[in-house]
């Protein structure tokens, strides 16, 4: 049994599909490239594919992951041996904006994405509700203030219930990148690293804690990285190669 980890993007119009939609796209793509999938037992066999953190509908990403289990036999291993061909075939079978960018076999017993990923880096544009300008300098001061504070109490909606808690520890980094260009001129581009444990903090939720001078709204949120942090080190589940055809990284070393 071989488990393969894949890294992929979700960009453009396709960002309006849901996490479930993405799962079904992948199932069809795997069948189209005739990857020999392992199926679950039972009444309605499903391919064994597990996705990491759900990406909220409407968010883009450069760093989505899934683990897929291949049926025993050489074909899966052989396919994974030619990673560029595999990635190219999958990307062709996936919608525009969803591209497979890296793949590697996982060592036996490797932990799941859900267990491993600890934080994500996000980038987005903050705009003023009602079209007012956002001052980059003032927002930078708010960000510094937020990071200097020891608590950040937010009320968030979770599964239809309002939950109030201190999320300060979930904000690992927060910075203003500068004024945004069109189509969000007047807005400010932000970047943050937000923990996903014990519960994920989302960029839009963080904006509520930055709303000095009127409510801010999030535009074009995009996930840039998912991170695994352990023992003071931090790495990605799979690094995206700078050139698509480049040699895949050796995640087995990183994941161990």
């Amino acid at each position, binding site marked *: 049994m071989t488990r393969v980890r894949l890294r992929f993007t979700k960009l453009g*119009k*396709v960002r*309006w599909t849901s996490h479930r939609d993405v799962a079904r796209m992948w199932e*069809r*793509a*795997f*069948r189209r490239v005739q990857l020999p999938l392992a199926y679950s037992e039972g009444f309605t066999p499903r391919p064994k594919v597990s996705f990491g953190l759900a990406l909220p509908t409407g968010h883009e990403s450069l760093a989505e992951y899934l683990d897929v289990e291949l049926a025993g036999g050489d074909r899966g291993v052989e396919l994974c041996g030619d990673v560029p061909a595999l990635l190219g075939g999958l990307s062709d079978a996936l919608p525009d904006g969803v591209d497979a960018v890296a793949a590697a076999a996982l060592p036996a017993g490797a932990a799941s994405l859900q267990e491993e990923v600890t934080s994500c880096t996000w980038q987005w544009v903050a705009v003023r509700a009602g079209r007012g300008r956002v001052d980059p300098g003032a927002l930078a001061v708010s960000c510094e203030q937020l990071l200097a504070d020891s608590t950040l109490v937010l009320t968030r909606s979770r599964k239809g219930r309002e939950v109030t808690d201190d999320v300060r520890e979930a904000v690992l980094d927060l910075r203003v990148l500068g004024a945004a260009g069109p189509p969000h001129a007047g807005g400010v581009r932000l970047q943050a690293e937000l923990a996903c444990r014990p519960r994920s903090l989302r960029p839009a939720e963080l904006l509520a804690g930055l709303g000095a001078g009127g409510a801010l709204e999030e535009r074009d949120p995009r996930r840039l990285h998912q991170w695994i942090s352990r023992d003071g080190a931090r790495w990605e589940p799979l690094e995206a190669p700078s050139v698509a055809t480049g040699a895949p990284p050796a995640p087995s070393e990183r994941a161990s």
Partner: protein
Amino acid sequence: MTSLWPRIEPLLARVHKPARYIGCEDGATVPAHGPGRAAWLLVYPDAYEVGLPNQGLQILYELLNERGDAAAERSYAPWTDMEAEMRRAGVPLFSLETHRPAGSFDVLAFNLSAELVYTNVLNCIDLAGVDVHAGRRRPQDPLVVAGGHCTFNPEPLAEFVDAFVIGDGEEVVGEITEVVAAWKRSGRTEGSRRRVLRELATVGGVYVPSLYDVSYDGPRLVAVTPRYPDVPAVVEKRTVADLGAWPYPRRQLVPLTEVVHDRLNVEIFRGCTRGCRFCQAGMITRPVRERPASQVREMVRSGLDRTGYDEVSLTSLSSADFSGIDEVVSGIINDPACSGQVSVSLPSLRVDAFTVGVAAEIQKVRRTGLTFAPEGGTWRMRQVINKLIREEELYGAVEAAFSQGWHRLKLYFLTGLPTETEEDTLGIAELARNCAAVGRSHVRAPRVTASVGGFVPKPQTPFQWFRQDTVEELCAKVGLLRGATRGDPGVQLRWHDPRASVAEGIASRGDRRVGAVIEEVWRRGGTFQEWSEHFDLGRWTSAMDAHGLSLEWYVHRERPEDELLPWDHVSAGLHRDFLWQEWRDALAAAGTPDCRWTACYDCGACTGYGIEHVVASPLPPAGGSQGTGQDQSGGGSVPVELRPRAVGAASR
């Protein structure tokens, strides 16, 4: 024409299921718009997830985009939340491929598969920025065209639609394109709209309602008369003689988000001559035209390869009737390329053990539920509707299903049928209970769902003269059935809202005057009437009152033989005396055989158009006596092995 996308995208964060509005499906075409090409916007007037799988729309979409003089895009009715956002932001109805405004197209073409979508048609025209009244449109407005089964009574939408297409669209869509492309080149000047409509009326199968005068005597329709000598007095439907010449869709759309019937669909034949008297589809799509089996196999193989689907549905009005269906099915199941992970579904299963055998073969992979449609609760009732399934056949099929691992069965019934007595109604409950009892000898907790719909008489059928039941009558029948199924844990009763049947009745057999009612229901916010959360019969009845129209007259009244019916100037080829004879035979509970395998009784569908059945085998299918009422045991052996199966074996 610029894309509206920058104005649409900000709305998407605020609506449910935004993927409905993005397009991007596999199989979608980047349209080649240009001055020499008629630009079609194909609109399905219901939610995306209902409309996307529609095969008719997908066939026309491909055919048009293959032409050098056309370009086609698609649109679906925006859900109520999106509509509100669009109206607030001033965003018109848009196409999914390039997000262009609907008003910039040459043709808005609606697919009419059900009458309750009529208010959505008006809403979509209005959202396009076009006047809903055909007579008030400006020279530069698109032509509003409609096709689909409902156009066999076009009159309720006659005020709103410029031209209707009656029958199969494959050929006529090209002929319309030529007329429209010429109109486009002419610059759509003042007066050209009248000329293009006149020209369209001379295309076979096209009905232009504004070119007919309609006269009434009180409530009674007296005449529908063409205004010009070159406009046909009766518009005959179009029929594609050979389905094999049209292997479409070649590139079925694969949606990115969940839709109904989310699988590969391959149409294996068109038309049905079982002759069920309530069934409009079976009457208006005659004769039977089978697709060659080799083409079916090719379409399945290439479709699965291209889409990545793991399920294929072999569609038709009665798929088990396809000549050699068992060989086609086992060919798919045993195709090594499918590696045992492909399941096949046959909608509209016939009720017999042979069919269950085929179903057992194809659902090796995923054995979910089986559905049968006896439609009537007693043998007498089934003779009236000409659905000649004997009780033994039903129980044989049910026995076969439970013994081969199914645990759940669904039975479809109609109530409110002609001559229906209390005994007939209660027969539904009895059949369902007996099926559950058969199930108990095979599985521990069999589940039989009896799904009951209130019958709505449809135009161009033998029941077009029949008086539809009132809400009270239907509710009483549902009440009887609830009482009769209550004590049985194996039977679950489901029923269609009787109030929706009344609204459907208004729209199904209405004349032009009903258009005002549809408009009023729409203006009062009555869109998505197929959806129970948006349906309100009160809107319909108060609109009928407001326009002085009687529910009694339009819905709950039996029509005499000599009454001019609102759709009599549209022809499905069926002789009126054939339909009338069928109606009399129904009242006498006398059946009519299937003409595929017995002598022609000249209904008109073949003889009138010089076409005939296209079937690979002149013999009736094995075990398939249903619908013929004859002993056809010689028609083929029943290759079904009834193997006992360990209880619960399939539910591991």
